[in-house]
């Protein structure tokens, strides 16, 4: 519950910003360099999971509650979905690339039409949902009643 030693906690506290930044970089430059929404999202989730591992279970609500993560997860996919639907309404075809890129901005950060938008959506989705999966696997403890126990008693305990 209380987490690992002071050394581990301190190192993790220093590292978390860099890992997060690297994740954001991978997401934003997904259309130019290897990587993209999924891999960047995994790295973002890793930054939070690292703190979670170092500081112990109790820190969960302080850094990132799992309800907020669940909502970000929905927001992520809705960004992707909105990009596809906007293509339908602006470009006339579902998933149409409705942002045109000028020739001089090729290979710059702001290029590639809707791909960066989709990448941001996927990054949010993957980061949030991986974190939620980790929190649920780590924090939820399932109590299986032994056969000799009275099942009704157990149910009352849960209430």
């Amino acid at each position, binding site marked *: 519950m209380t987490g690992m030693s002071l050394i581990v906690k301190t190192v993790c506290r220093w590292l978390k910003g860099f890992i997060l930044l690297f994740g954001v970089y991978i997401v934003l430059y997904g259309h130019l360099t290897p990587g993209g929404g999924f891999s960047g999202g995994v790295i973002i989730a890793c930054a939070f999971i690292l703190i979670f591992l170092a500081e112990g279970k109790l820190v969960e609500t302080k850094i990132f509650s799992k309800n907020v993560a669940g909502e970000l*997860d929905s927001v992520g996919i809705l960004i992707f979905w909105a990009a596809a639907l906007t293509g339908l309404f602006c470009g006339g075809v*579902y998933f149409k*690339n409705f942002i045109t890129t000028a020739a001089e901005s090729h290979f710059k950060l702001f290029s590639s039409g809707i791909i960066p938008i989709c990448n941001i959506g996927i990054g949010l989705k993957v980061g949030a949902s991986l974190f939620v999966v980790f929190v649920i696997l780590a924090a939820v403890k399932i109590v299986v009643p032994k056969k000799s126990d009275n099942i009704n008693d157990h149910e009352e305990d849960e209430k």
Partner: protein
Amino acid sequence: MNHLIPLFIAVPLGAAFFIPLVSRHVKWVPDVFGNLTMFSLAAMSFYTIGQSEVYHLGAWQTPIGIDLRLDGLSSLLLIAINVIGLAATLYSVAYMRIFTSKLRYYSLFLIMVTGMNGVVLTADLFNLYIFMEMAAIASYALVGFGCEHEELEASFKYLVLGSLATLFVLIGVALLYGMTGSLNMAQVATSMQSAAQAAQGTMAKPYIFALGLFICGFALKSALVPFHAWLPDAYQSAPAPISAMLSGVLTKTIGVYVLARLLFNVFGISQQLLLILQILGALSMVVGVLLAIGQWDMKRLFAYHSISQIGYVVLALGLGTPLGIIGGLYHLVNHSVFKSLLFLNAGAVEYSTGTRDLKRLGGLNQALPITGKTSLVASMSIAGIPPFNGFWSKLIIIIACVQAGYYWLAAWAVFVSLVTLASFLKVQKYAFLDAAKMALAKIQHTPFFMGLSMVVLAILCVVTSLAVLSGFDAPVLIAPAADVLIKGLITL
């Protein structure tokens, strides 16, 4: 371009993630939004009748982009999925109160519908795999929705066998991609045909391996007999509307439909493949029904009947004649109507009395008149009593067997139908007709929405039987769907 086609995927997907975002604070959102979504999808699905076109996503042309394809067969399946889905969500308004979280339920339900609509519409092999996984993973979670010991066990069993099936399918897709260099179904079919022509009609070995993988994978998904182990447990422990969806449309969409689509339209059907389908179908029919008749749990009994009725569909497709294909597709639609009605009936009985055990029920006709009457309609439909829909489709299948010269298969189908009748007489007698075994005061009334969806499905049982009025050769809606598969018979 017909912009309804991508909306079948976009609308439920958006709704599935919009519901959890909003409804943590507003409690009525999941019910209203889930039902509105399914209602609009059901209405949209009727607009697809008679249309056929290829939709290029993002306006990228075929070899580069991903295509969606709407044709007669897709539109038939779309109508089945979304109408049955609407009935299930209507039913859930009242029924899912006994479970904990409507928010998660509707979210998963709509993801499952997204997956199924996608499977039916996609023209791309890898997207087929992805949509299949979407539908399947949502259904694993929904089967275990009650979170009790039995439900989790069933869900785990379903998950393991389902993952095995998707693994087979994925390897099959990879092999096809490696051999043909394309994932588009039409292009794969063309390059396979030219390869077969170059080799004087023999199929290269990787294709045969891929074919075997696909048959195993999709037979597991559609629970044909040697592959049926997961089905009874899963249907028994899922919430009633989910059992109705799984049995009514999921196994058909991600099992039978894809199998038929691949065998008839991508690989090209051959006599050996038809024989495999006939054997799988005939085995499923008889094993399913013989296992069913001894069951005392209502839902488990219905679950075994699902195996048997899917057997009819696969057998009819395996005849390889136009009439057989028409009969098979007609039975597929009819089965999705009456079997989902039966599962909803079982759910209503469980909701009102607290048990599904036939030995403890009895005399429910007085206490639950709507459930009693609709279940009588559904039982007579599945047993093949005229004028209900099941009679006509079974009749077409039997006539097709005789026409194709398979007399013993026709006799087999009649025998299975008789055993089906016997086991549904058992359900009617023990649950609805016998003397009451529990106090009437203890039995709760059926809520309005549950009654409504059961009545709608019972009316559909009669309405779908009207399709034969236009003649056996061209029932409305079925004919364009059958034409798609009949095109595949040319290679015979």
